[in-house]
């Protein structure tokens, strides 16, 4: 039973880590909260499902189409919300992205209705039974794909000049510009990379739960903030640590305390970490002011 829960939380933690990594990248270069992150992710899932309705639901095809759609939407959001408000007080982009979140969520409610929609994807991996544990194909896939995506991201950030430019911008945006880094290009491409990661997470999450619903973005958004902040906002290893911690807390509290308060426990964990260590577990202290 404990082993089963551990395996489940590992799969969930992998998916959360992808979402949080994408979020942390975007926060890292912008230093701004992106409130519509989860909603962009969910609407991409809806759009892909609608477009693919007639064809087969192969995992690869769904993955590629969701990633493409979410990246396009990510660029759109960056252009419409974050670029015009870059130099304004933080509250302006905050309110603006909250507005975008409301807008996307209600567009989904209007277009697809409030009911849950089946997220049908053919999982190319069979369910495994080992040592009394049962691991569904989607969970195995989640673990494998999220590790692969993390390795890819790590290689990108550490081994390429482009990745170095991103890390430079995260560390010190002004110095990066002085070193000849094109900030607009870095911000836009980080938005694409971050959104693409969230797209992968969307497909994995959808195939794990088998359904999506229009207001899912709020839950995804708050969990992503929670994981990012628990680990340390803007920190890449912190995002992974925070996500795993959140997934463990959630899975074990659902199994041993109460399923109803599963989401509340994420929030309690978040508030506790914020109080004990405001910069997060692996985060460095940042001067924050609005």
């Amino acid at each position: 039973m404990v082993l089963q829960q551990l395996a489940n939380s590992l799969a969930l933690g992998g998916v959360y880590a992808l979402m949080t990594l994408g979020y942390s990248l975007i926060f890292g270069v912008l230093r701004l909260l992106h409130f519509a992150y989860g909603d962009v992710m969910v609407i991409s899932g809806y759009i892909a499902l609608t477009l693919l309705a007639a064809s087969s639901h192969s995992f690869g095809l769904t993955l590629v189409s969701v990633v493409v759609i979410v990246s396009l939407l990510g660029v759109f959001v960056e252009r419409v919300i974050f670029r015009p408000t870059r130099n304004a007080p933080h509250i302006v982009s905050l309110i603006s992205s909250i507005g975008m979140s409301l807008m996307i969520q209600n567009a989904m409610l209007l277009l697809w209705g409030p009911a849950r929609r089946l997220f049908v994807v053919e999982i190319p991996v069979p369910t495994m039974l080992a040592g009394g544990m049962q691991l569904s194909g989607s969970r195995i896939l989640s673990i494998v794909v999220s590790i692969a995506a993390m390795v890819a991201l790590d290689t990108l950030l550490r081994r390429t000049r482009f990745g170095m430019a991103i890390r430079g911008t995260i560390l010190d945006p002004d110095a990066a510009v002085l070193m000849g880094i094109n900030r607009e290009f870095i911000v836009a491409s980080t938005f694409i990379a971050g959104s693409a990661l969230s797209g992968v997470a969307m497909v994995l999450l959808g195939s794990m739960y088998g359904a999506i619903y229009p207001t899912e973005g709020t839950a995804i958004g708050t969990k992503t903030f929670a994981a990012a902040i628990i680990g340390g906002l803007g920190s890449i290893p912190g995002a992974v640590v925070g996500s795993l911690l959140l997934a463990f807390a959630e899975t074990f509290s659902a199994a041993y305390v109460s399923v109803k308060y599963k989401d509340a426990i994420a929030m309690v964990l978040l508030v506790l970490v914020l109080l004990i260590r405001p910069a997060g577990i692996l985060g460095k202290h940042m001067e924050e002011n609005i």
Partner: protein
Amino acid sequence: MGTILGFRRYLLWGALMIPALLLPILRLPTFIYRIATLIFIYSCVNTGYNLLVGYCGIISVAQAGFFGIGAYTAALMSIHLHTSFVVNVVAGALMAATLSALLGLPILRLKGQYLVVATLGINQVISLVACNAEFTGGPNGLPGIAAPSILGISIASPTSLYYLNLGGLVLVTAVAALLVHSPVGRSMIAVREDQLAAEAIGINVGATKLLTFTLAAAIAGLAGGFYAHNGLYVSWQTFIPGESFIMLAMLTIGGMGTLAGPVLGTALLMALPEALRSASLYRFFLYGLALSVVAPLWPGGLTGIRMKRKASTATRALSSQGGSAA
């Protein structure tokens, strides 16, 4: 009071009050009075919210949660203890104030975006408890709240509820007006403009923030009591974090840091979808659109202060240089 508020402003509010007082004489369709009553209630919530966001510069997104605490407190007291309207409303305000003070004490140490996320968490937990606990009636909510009565006079008709809630709004606005023109109000504004400078001239920044946070929650709780006794039913969906966002939209569009702003924004965002009946489906979509467009283009809203630009000239020069290279 005339000298505190300035005679002209006093006159303006008085002029606004006359049509509000006379509206019931017109005997319009009942639903108009019901909408107006809801506008009064939400204007109260937003007036409190405005003290926090507009005057003190603290961005919290837990206002709908504290509104819910007040509503559920009043509802539970009315249902189980059969206490009177005034007692329930005051209890709702006190409960919200107590909880917010307890939560604010640790949480207000956080700044900016961290505080936003922490308050989001608080609101999420409040609505989760409301939706799942036994004593809140779970997802079914709480029906069976007694109609309000004051001094033995029962208030049940739409027009009398209209006047009752108008009275509530006048009371809350008067308190807010007195407050923002008092030394406490000036401390709040000083904290908003520059915390360091405020501290340097001897303002207790921590205490000012906590007081404003508690006061905003107390007003939300008070309005919650009015809400519970207006619809005679409360349900968790009214108090989800998304509702806090809508309140923030109302503030943004009405204008922050002015007394008229929250009332104007609330009235506009609540009346407009009703006026455009066919567009009511798109209501929240339009709220979102308004929010994401108004905030960047028109930071002051209809009446509000211009939030000062935080980025220094040097940073702006650098980022525009980066932009021109793109």
